[in-house]
């Protein structure tokens, strides 16, 4: 006779130490094995899209920072590229280079948070603090340039709010020189640690077809084996002037597309970003950064979809303008919003401890999910 076991519903969140923000995961458990995961979002919904309709074009930029607050430069870049295409402005070369440097520094900072919290979720607390110690140095670089550490309002339509700080280049070189050994040390401490590998390899395997069908982008898609990066495949800004590879998941420690691959792709991406920054600093032209900022921003009627490779995936802005000074409609394709849908697929059949490991590897930011 079969023992009557009924399933236990466990609510993880919205206030939970490791859900990276206000996300509620409703897990139906059979013993410790997960049968269904229902994410409930909307706790951090601040109606970004409604705000855009009453703000002028430049006033929307501080709001874009607050969506993915760990990669604010990337958000601003996406929005500003879209509006510049609408207006048909061509920004000076120096602005493009500074934007690339800032976006890549932001990618390293955001990946450091992703890797640090992932280690903390699995239980290793020390790498979390090492990552944040390195991230502080990047935030200081942002602070001397535009004054803010997290929400910058630095990339404007047609240029930048400030030019680079005089000793920005020296400090960035110093940061890169000290960051490389730290990265190697992090690998020794966490990446190749047997317990970490046991906890993450072959956990939450994402096959390539389901990834494409679910519209997954960013490190998660690359970890499943597809070499797809907007900086190379749909080049924007001056990314075509630098040579850098796109790290792809290779199933070194388990199968292709498991949580360890997603983690390791982010580590490799940081090394690539360092290469880009070094080349960008070497070829940094000079010029004025505020020359192309238009006084009156009134784009023609029309709609445009601009997209940028953010640390979490493809961030797209669908901007509809009706010819007035404020956008008629701005729809944001947030990478975390799309990547979160896969949680149910990934977590089925795993244990409760694995949900934390998988959620950490998916790396979502709730500000971006709920907008």
């Amino acid at each position, binding site marked *: 006779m079969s023992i009557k076991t009924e399933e236990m519903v466990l609510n993880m969140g919205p206030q939970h130490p490791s859900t990276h923000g206000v996300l509620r995961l409703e897990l139906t458990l059979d013993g410790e094995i997960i049968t269904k995961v229902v994410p409930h979002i909307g706790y951090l919904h601040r109606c970004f899209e409604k705000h855009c309709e009453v703000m002028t074009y430049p006033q929307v930029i501080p709001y874009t920072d607050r969506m993915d607050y760990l990669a604010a430069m990337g958000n601003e870049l996406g929005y500003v590229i879209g509006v510049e295409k609408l207006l048909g402005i061509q920004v000076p070369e120096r602005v493009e280079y500074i934007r690339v440097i800032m976006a890549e520094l932001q990618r390293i900072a955001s990946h450091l948070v992703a890797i640090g919290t992932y280690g903390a979720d699995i239980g290793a607390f020390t790498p979390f603090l090492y990552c944040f110690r390195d991230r502080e140095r990047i935030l200081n670089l942002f602070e001397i340039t535009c004054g803010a550490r997290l929400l910058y309002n630095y990339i404007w339509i047609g240029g930048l709010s400030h030019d680079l700080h005089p000793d920005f280049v020296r400090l960035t070189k110093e940061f890169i020189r000290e960051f490389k050994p730290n990265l190697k040390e992090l690998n*020794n401490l966490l990446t190749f640690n047997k317990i970490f590998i046991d906890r993450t390899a072959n956990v939450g395997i994402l096959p390539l077809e389901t990834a494409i069908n679910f519209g997954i982008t960013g490190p998660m898609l690359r970890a499943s084996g597809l070499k797809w990066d907007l900086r190379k495949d749909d080049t924007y800004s001056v990314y075509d002037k630098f040579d850098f590879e796109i790290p792809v998941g290779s199933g070194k420690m388990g199968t292709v597309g498991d949580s360890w691959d997603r983690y390791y792709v982010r580590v490799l991406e940081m090394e690539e970003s360092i290469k880009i920054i070094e080349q960008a600093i070497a070829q940094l032209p000079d010029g004025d950064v505020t020359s192309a900022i238009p006084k009156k921003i009134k784009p023609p009627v029309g709609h445009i979809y601009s997209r940028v490779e953010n640390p979490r995936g493809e961030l797209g802005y669908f901007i509809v303008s009706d010819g007035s000074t404020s956008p008629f409609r701005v729809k944001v394709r947030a990478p975390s919003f799309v990547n979160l849908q896969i949680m149910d697929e990934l977590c089925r059949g795993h244990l409760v401890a694995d949900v934390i490991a998988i959620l950490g590897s998916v790396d979502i930011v709730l500000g971006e999910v709920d907008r």
Partner: protein
Amino acid sequence: MKEYFNNIFTALLTIFVGMKVTLRHLFTPSVTIQYPDVKILLPERERNRLYVNMDDCIGCDQCARACPVNCIEIETVKSLPGEDLGKTSNGKKKALWVTKFTIDFAKCCYCQLCVFPCPTECIYMTDVYEFSEYDRNNLIYNFATLTEEQRLEKIENFRKFSEEKEKQKSQAQKSE
């Protein structure tokens, strides 16, 4: 069988490698500072609390329009022709009495959009970041320099002045 011993070997090896890393960090000097006693010197472009230099402010309302969250409120009263309101630092003649200039720092999002359009650069961001309050209303800073009765007096003068002008205009129309 081989995989069994390989597991044990890699486990022990990686644990000892990890321990070597943390041991080395045990003796590296710490990067943190003791905040209340030691304070970091902030860079000069720091964006924390706004400050408005009132004798340069000509009440042009540019900053209030540029602010995305409308946290700046300005009320101005036209000055009578005779009155002399003094000059701003860069020599521009002031024509408006700024009777009310409040910034609500509970709403301000520190985006610095108000600093750039100001013609006389009288509004700028300082690096003061320790200004938390117990009551939210204390965060509404009033920068206007006129006292309460001066404010009323200015409004009063302007109302009288505009009435006289109305009378003169109506007489002028009657006389035509």
